[in-house]
């Protein structure tokens, strides 16, 4: 039993990072109706930035996260302006958006591959210093693990506050609901979309740093598997539903951890992808999401 709870705690760490990634992903879908595959590349960019900040410049965790956040936001805005905004002027953009995202993913991965010379980066051991925190009942959580979890929860919570209680956050939700009503209220729709990209990408970048630290693994292609995990989280919570993305992320993280422990680490993929498949067949709107997914 204790073992299981320990695994759940471990799972929450990954789950927190997945939740941040999924949050941005679902935000983009909710507002723009596109599946942005380049989100995975933004994650990797964040991981690289975090690595350089911590391993090369010895920056503290918070500083590294701050830099990653900013770089991520800029990346998002650039992607929007260069690729997704021109696409919006056309009709029937779902397929194009998928391919554009894919192409960008490929591009960015390749650039990072060259930059990193295909090496896997690991953090210096000092990063993980500090005694594990005892939680009682024999449960422990690594100090860094705890930081990661707390940061993920803080950012996630911050997003909620932003979306619910600030004018800009509310404007994003109105734009996601109906752009014509948004316009009639004087909301600058294109600019709000840029903000959305910035926020979503900032979160992905932070998630990248957190993943890199959690698994001590920074690699040019690391975004792709997380992309798939993120999609699973988003489907579980409901595409377009922000709270759902967070819950979905945490659940997927925990499920993954438990699967690795009690079944086999090979099975994690099967379980994750099967969840997506089964959900889409039985309940495409996920736990909390919108129901309008069926075709005519």
């Amino acid at each position, binding site marked *: 039993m204790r073992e299981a709870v320990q695994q759940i705690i471990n799972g929450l760490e990954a789950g927190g990072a997945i939740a941040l990634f999924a949050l941005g992903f679902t935000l983009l879908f909710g507002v723009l109706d596109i599946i942005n595959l380049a989100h995975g590349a933004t994650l990797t960019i964040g991981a690289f930035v975090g690595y350089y900040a911590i391993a090369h410049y010895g920056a503290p965790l918070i500083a590294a996260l701050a830099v990653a956040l900013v770089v991520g936001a800029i990346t998002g805005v650039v992607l929007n302006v260069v690729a997704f905004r021109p696409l919006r002027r056309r009709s029937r953009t779902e397929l194009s958006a998928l391919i554009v995202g894919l192409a960008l993913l490929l591009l960015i991965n390749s650039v990072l591959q060259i930059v990193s010379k295909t090496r896997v980066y690991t953090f210096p051991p000092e990063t993980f210093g500090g005694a594990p925190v005892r939680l009682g009942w024999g449960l422990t959580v690594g100090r860094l693990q705890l930081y990661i979890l707390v940061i993920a929860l803080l950012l996630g919570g911050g997003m909620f506050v932003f979306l619910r209680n600030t004018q800009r956050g*509310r404007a994003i939700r109105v734009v996601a609901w109906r752009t014509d009503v948004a*316009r009639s*209220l004087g*909301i600058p729709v294109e600019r709000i979309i840029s903000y959305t990209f910035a926020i979503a990408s900032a979160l992905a970048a932070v998630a990248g740093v957190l993943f890199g630290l959690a698994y001590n693994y920074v690699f040019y292609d690391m975004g792709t598997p997380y992309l798939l995990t993120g999609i699973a989280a988003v489907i579980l919570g409901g595409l377009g539903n922000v709270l759902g993305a967070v819950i979905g992320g945490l659940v997927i993280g925990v499920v993954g951890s438990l699967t690795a422990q009690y079944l086999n680490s090979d099975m994690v993929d099967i379980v994750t992808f099967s969840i997506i498949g089964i959900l889409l067949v039985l309940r495409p709107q996920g736990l909390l999401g919108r129901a309008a997914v069926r075709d005519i």
Partner: protein
Amino acid sequence: MTLTVDSVRARYESGGEIVRGVSIEVRPGEIVCLLGPNGAGKSSVLRAIAGMMKIVEGSIRLGDIDLTNRRSEDIARSGVGFVMQGRCAIPFMTVHENLRMGGYTIYDRARLKTSLERTYDNYPVLAELRNRLAGELSGGQQQLVEIARALVPEPDLLLVDEPSLGLAPKMADEVMELLANLAAEGRAVLMVEQNVKKGLSVAHRGYVLANGVVVLAESSAKLLRSDDLGQLFLGAFQTPSQRETEARQ
């Protein structure tokens, strides 16, 4: 600030040209009603003013501000409020949040606060419903929220599209009264109203549209009395041959 619509032709993205040469004027303190059979282009005129259609000919000015073919959000910031047809209150936000979104273009927090307080003073019903989700309110209450929301930034011109649609007669009356008060305060109100008699009961003037052009422009008193209005709808019911026969008699 007077609204001047001058010989405007406008069409939607999909191509159909609905507004075929319309000229309208609305002065401060006036309520003007757009009437006419459905499909005549009444709502489209409002949408054209609000920047949601492509103006292919003519111009739209509010005072000395040119609104022709500008983006909707810029037009909203230029002092034009738009209450769209149907339920446009943001259903997943509370009444208070809806009103705050109405004040999106107000950057000064103090001014926004004052504006909201003023709104609650003017519409005590909304003060009671402050924390209710707009989606749960009745049709009439939602319409009230939408109008109040459009008024938060204190627009010079208010466009209202079919305010009584889907409302019980009593609610519709209250909404009409509200609009009348607005004009009394010195705003310009341009309204599309399906219910001819209700609309003309509060409006000062009316324009009758048919097939995308203005066919009649009169004071509402005259319109209510005239046979012409009846003719337009009634006469529209008569076939040309019937009209001819009647005319000969």
